[in-house]
């Protein structure tokens, strides 16, 4: 794996043309090259003589700029799949390709470099660094990737402004609401303009109004060309995706584009039938 540094402009050109922010011009996904591709991916956990086959031979693809949701019952292997794709846990067998390069055999350090440059992560429980300010949380990934403090700060200011939390820059994460913390986590994940955003139940811990906010932000990021692979139970979030993969028992049970139902809805009144 060559080292690539994409932040902010010094490295190789990005895979897909877009500017850095969430409000970049629309760049709908086309039949581009595979950004992520897996082949016969398997993840087996062994502990105390017990063997759990969490992922059992998964072949999936994510195109450049594509938004794919992964759904399925608890224990179907969704989160495990996401963690393996992000190198947080090693695959047991099978192949993972990212941007045309095979990555499943990378060392821990190799994965760390890859994540810094190409993968943004958002988790259900935010996972912000509690002893740092919001601003430092968002600037850290850029600094680790080699940005100057001035560049990191500029990017952080842009992101927090776009996410509507510019006034929270100096606050400790614990002082923020859940919705605000998740926005900070999103800003941190997008700080290095990752090739792909991996999100594990990003709205799983949010109330309905905060979910709507995060939804809006994800929609904007996707419209700006951001590729997203998201595990979710929330059908509202999944319905924004281009495609939904259903996992069952560690295997792909369904993989289909979302097609809005072509039923003329003249207004909200057609949504539910009011009695009376």
């Amino acid at each position, binding site marked *: 794996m060559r080292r690539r540094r994409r932040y902010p402009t010094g490295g190789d050109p990005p895979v897909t043309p877009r500017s850095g922010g969430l409000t970049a011009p629309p760049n709908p996904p086309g039949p581009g090259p595979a950004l992520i591709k897996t082949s016969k991916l398997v993840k087996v956990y062994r502990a105390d003589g017990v063997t759990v086959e969490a992922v059992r031979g998964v072949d999936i693809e994510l195109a450049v700029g594509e938004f794919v949701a992964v759904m399925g019952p608890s224990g179907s292997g969704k989160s495990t799949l996401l963690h393996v794709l992000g190198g947080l846990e090693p695959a047991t067998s099978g192949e993972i390709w990212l941007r045309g390069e095979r990555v499943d055999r990378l060392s821990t350090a190799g994965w760390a470099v890859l994540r810094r440059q190409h993968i943004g992560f958002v988790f259900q429980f935010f996972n912000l660094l509690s002893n740092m300010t919001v601003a430092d949380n968002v600037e850290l990934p850029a600094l680790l990737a080699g940005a100057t403090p001035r560049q990191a700060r500029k990017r952080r200011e842009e992101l927090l402004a776009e996410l509507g939390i510019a006034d929270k820059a100096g606050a400790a994460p614990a002082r923020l609401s859940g919705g605000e913390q998740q926005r900070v986590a999103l800003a941190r994940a997008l700080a290095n303009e990752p090739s792909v955003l991996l999100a594990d139940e990003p709205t799983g811990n949010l109330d309905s109004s905060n979910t709507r906010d995060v939804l809006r932000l994800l929609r904007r990021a996707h419209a700006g060309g951001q590729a997203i692979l998201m595990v979710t139970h929330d059908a*509202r979030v*999944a319905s*924004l995706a281009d495609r*939904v993969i259903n996992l*069952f028992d560690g295997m792909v049970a369904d993989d289909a584009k979302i097609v809005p*139902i072509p039923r003329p809805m003249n207004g*909200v*009144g057609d*949504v539910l039938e*009011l009695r009376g």
Partner: protein
Amino acid sequence: MRQPLLALLAKEPAHGYELKLALEQTFGQAYPSPNIGQIYVTLKRLEQDGLVRSEDVEQTTRPNKRVYELTPAGREALRAWVNEPSDGPRVRDEFFIKLILAPMAGLADRMELMNAQRRHYLGIMRNLTELQADADPADVPARLLIEGAILHLQADLDWLERCQEELV
């Protein structure tokens, strides 16, 4: 249509067109815009049933208008309607019957049926989330109605997942 008209007339007497406007103002986008003809037909039936009565009010520059008011019987009917619990949303029994029976008859695979149904639900959900994004934030009834539809659909999807766990 009957009960909403009775409820509006309980507030004050009104003629047909005023009732149409009042419905639109109260529910915003959440209520399918009522047809004025349907309102007149319903008022006539309510009058036949003794729940409202009407009288012509002369207007100097326009034709007379018919103003309706609630009768004691109408007030009683309205009170009974308000106090009785409303039915919960029905379960999607049609799909469930398909899911149970079709594989027994060798007509379909359960996993395929559930996948097709999930795709359908997600397509509807896409419509609803777009409707929600476009809804006027000040139109509270409309927002609540969309949210209700979304929550029902989410429950349908959760239930589908439970069927998948138990039946496959």
